[in-house]
């Protein structure tokens, strides 16, 4: 039973209609709080980790070990004037950061989180097509970035948005094909392979072992999706100032920033769910959420290490890589998955 249904049962004395409205409301509040906690944790982790890699100390002034630094930064951003550039396309300019943030929160709503001792299942929404919904929600975020680039009437922003489009087009196809291979493999075990919970539960050995190629393709694509180094050509600071978010300031900029770090956490969590067994652990299925978090944090650290050590790849090379290497490799991977599913019935 997911959280949404439990909430609806809790409000059941009210009429069915009102009960579901209240359930959705509470669910949204929980989600936003959860995403905020994740972001605070992620940004703190990133800043400390980056500082250690770069022989620095990192934030250590506000609060114990600088843990309240993020509060201070957030307050600063919220208190800043949000400058609106002249000649902007007003509505898209205002809603673009919201689209990015909403896409992020929506994606978190669809993930299965496993069980956690007395609370039971932490999964927020069950749906028998949640794989498709999840990738639809993820695909919302680039729209916000492109809107931001086009509407702010700035050459850097437009160039950044164009690069973003080129990037998104070239990685999304291999990403989807490698997920398709997973669905195919899961279909041998479960009746609803498009349901994320079933897809994750059907991994007796993690999909990452037979699907190593798919894991690599998916991880590269997700790094590109989150657009951080080496795939941060969209907002490459040494070329395009900061790409699509050049004209943004204050809390609107903060939303793009949160979108970036949220994406890293989201992509790491998706890789651990789809390829590393997710909330399945060596013991005690009660601690599923803990296993998921451990796997995710390890992947996040891998992503940070990549971020901090490699230079930016050139946009034409990346597009080449997407179409000439990732796409054929992911198709080969799909064929391998098909053979495994038919032959071995893994």
């Amino acid at each position: 039973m997911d959280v949404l249904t439990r909430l609806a049962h809790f409000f059941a004395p009210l009429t069915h209609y009102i009960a579901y409205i209240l359930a959705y409301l509470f669910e949204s509040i929980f989600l936003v709080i959860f995403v905020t906690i994740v972001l605070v944790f992620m940004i703190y982790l990133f800043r400390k980790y980056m500082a250690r890699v770069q022989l620095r100390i990192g934030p250590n002034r506000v609060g114990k070990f600088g843990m309240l630094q993020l509060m201070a930064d957030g307050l600063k951003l919220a208190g800043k004037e949000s400058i609106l550039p002249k000649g902007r396309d007003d509505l898209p300019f205002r809603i673009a950061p919201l689209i990015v943030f909403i896409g992020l929160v929506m994606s978190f709503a669809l993930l299965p989180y496993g069980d956690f001792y007395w609370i039971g299942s932490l999964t927020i929404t069950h749906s028998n097509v949640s794989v498709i919904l999840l990738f639809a929600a993820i695909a919302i975020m680039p729209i916000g970035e492109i809107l931001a680039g086009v509407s702010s009437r700035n050459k850097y922003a437009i160039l950044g948005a164009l690069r973003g489009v080129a990037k998104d087009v070239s990685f999304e196809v291999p990403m989807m094909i490698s997920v398709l291979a997973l669905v195919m493999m899961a279909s041998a075990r479960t009746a609803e392979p498009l349901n994320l919970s079933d897809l994750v539960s059907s991994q007796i050995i993690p999909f990452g072992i037979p699907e190593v190629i798919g894991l690599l393709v998916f991880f590269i694509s997700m790094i590109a999706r989150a657009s951080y180094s080496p795939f941060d050509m969209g907002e490459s600071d040494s070329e395009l100032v900061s790409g699509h978010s050049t004209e943004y300031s204050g809390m609107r900029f903060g939303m793009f920033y949160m979108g970036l770090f949220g994406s890293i956490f989201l992509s790491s969590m998706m890789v651990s769910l789809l390829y590393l067994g997710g909330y399945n652990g060596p013991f005690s299925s009660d601690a599923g959420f803990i296993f998921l978090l451990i796997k995710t944090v390890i992947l996040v650290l891998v992503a940070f290490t990549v971020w901090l050590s490699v230079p930016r790849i050139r946009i034409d090379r990346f597009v080449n890589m997407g179409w000439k290497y990732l796409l054929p490799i992911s198709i080969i991977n799909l064929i391998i998955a098909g053979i495994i599913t038919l032959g071995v019935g893994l």
Partner: protein
Amino acid sequence: MIQEEKKNDSREWTELNMGPQHPSTHGVLRLKIKLDGETVKEVEPIIGYLHRNAEKICELDYYCDSLIYFDRMDYVAAMNMEVGYLEAAEKLLGIPPPERAKWIRVIMAELSRIAAHLVWAGAFGLDLGMLSPFFYCFVQREKILRIFTEISGSRQETNYMSIGGVYQDINENIIYMIDEFTKEFPDKLEEIFNAFVKNDIFMSRNKGIGILEPEVAINYGVTGPMLRASGIEYDVRKAEPYLVYDQLNFDIPVSYKKDNLARFLVRFEEMRQSVRIIKQAIKKIPDGPYFNPKAKKSLMIRLRGEGEVYARTESPKGEFGVYLVGDGGVKPYRVRVRSPSLKNLSVIRHLGKDVLIADLIAISGTIDLVFGEVDR
């Protein structure tokens, strides 16, 4: 020619300004570029945002006081600038420095060269999107700056040398610091070097990009590591030795690959050679006075020079020339500086044609610009 091309190309080119307040450009460089999609069709560097009229100010000051303006030209390699000015001023005034001062100057100039190249390497990494090597470079540079602080009281704008010698002698403590530095720096340098060259993306961003043919380089007046990376073995320290460089044993790194990577490799090899020079010099340094008594502090402002001199030295950026004209007074009649960065920058018009924006940034990174020196 550009006009004709424009007529043939019916599409309009996008005009884009990079700088002077752009995170990629070093200092206050402004690049006015014309873009066709992602391809740079034309690039025009616009300079002058840091113009401080240093040469004219030098003409209004005593010979001994001009030194600080040279410190602030190439502010990451202040010692080299001081050497460059003093080579000219001492020739004009006829006050040669004693032997010991010459050796001290060589050591300081080479330390400064390492510091300047480290700043360059870090900034180049940032240009390409590598965040961490910047800090590794600056940690090493900090050790050099600590030596400078110990010897002159200032980190960057040292104002350490003076006409007829140096401001103060080097003592046991400083020799120990330099010894320690030369002992541990080569290993650290290899670490930094590997952080760059063992990275495939770094190699692919630099190999074969920004090829500078030797003829073009000579025509534009390019000097220093950029020229040597184009396959021409020209270094003022060997071609026309000043100070005591003729008594030292070192190589001039040359690369025949002519691209970004060649410039990168040449600069790193130069750092290794500088360490070699420092190691020799610290052993060979003779005893004796560190200051020419003819240029005592009380007599300093009465120094008069007549005639004209041109002195050239090898700064980290290239050939640094100082032209001085004296009319017999206590102040120079004319001061003129040949700054290597300016000549090296001019070649970007040639290199930045028909490349991608990302490559243009990488190319301008390998030129190694310091705007205090370009604009003066």
